[in-house]
């Protein structure tokens, strides 16, 4: 077993563990903000995994996908944060009545 194979196996194990832990938090998460953070972490891990795949297989096909994920990744978290804001304002208005 060469040193490259060992390193690739270690990278695969570490990324799998990281994604599974983020998924556990996304399922358990007590509030919607915890789930938003967990999905943000999972998305950045997908970005890192695509980069690792480009390094391991020595090609550039995944680089445009990385660019698109980096550009649109913010939208989900910001949308969830705005949604939470609107719901809270409605609740406080009901509390005043």
């Amino acid at each position: 077993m060469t040193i490259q194979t060992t390193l690739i196996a270690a990278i695969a194990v570490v990324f799998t563990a990281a994604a599974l832990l983020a998924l556990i938090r996304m399922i358990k998460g007590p509030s919607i903000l915890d789930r938003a953070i967990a999905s943000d972490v999972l998305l950045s891990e997908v970005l890192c995994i695509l980069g690792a795949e480009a390094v391991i297989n020595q090609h550039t096909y995944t680089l445009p996908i990385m660019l698109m994920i980096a550009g649109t990744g913010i939208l989900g978290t910001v949308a969830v944060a705005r949604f939470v804001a609107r719901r809270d304002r409605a609740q406080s208005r009901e509390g005043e009545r």
Partner: protein
Amino acid sequence: MTEIIALVLVLIGALLCLTASIGLLRFRDVPARLHAATKPQVLGVILIAIGIAVALHTWTAFAFLIPVVLIQLATAPISAHMVARQAYRNGSVDRHTLLVDELADDIDAQRDSG
């Protein structure tokens, strides 16, 4: 040799992702989880981008990686700031863990001034 350097850089980036996920699972409230979560979004992506640049070393890869890193540097603080602001207003922050709460003073001052 360059391949081994690139793989080691990718492995360090992967370990950063793992520490972020462990922090996400172990920490107690939203700001603490956010503190753990924003590390791989910037440092992990930068390390893996350097790894790709070392492994491929072509100008095409470099031209793709610079905007990826710049966009991550620009957008990670925006989403983290919005989530933290909503967590504060929502009451998801554990008040006993805060040593200094300057935002509460500011909100009180704004309310008093009308």
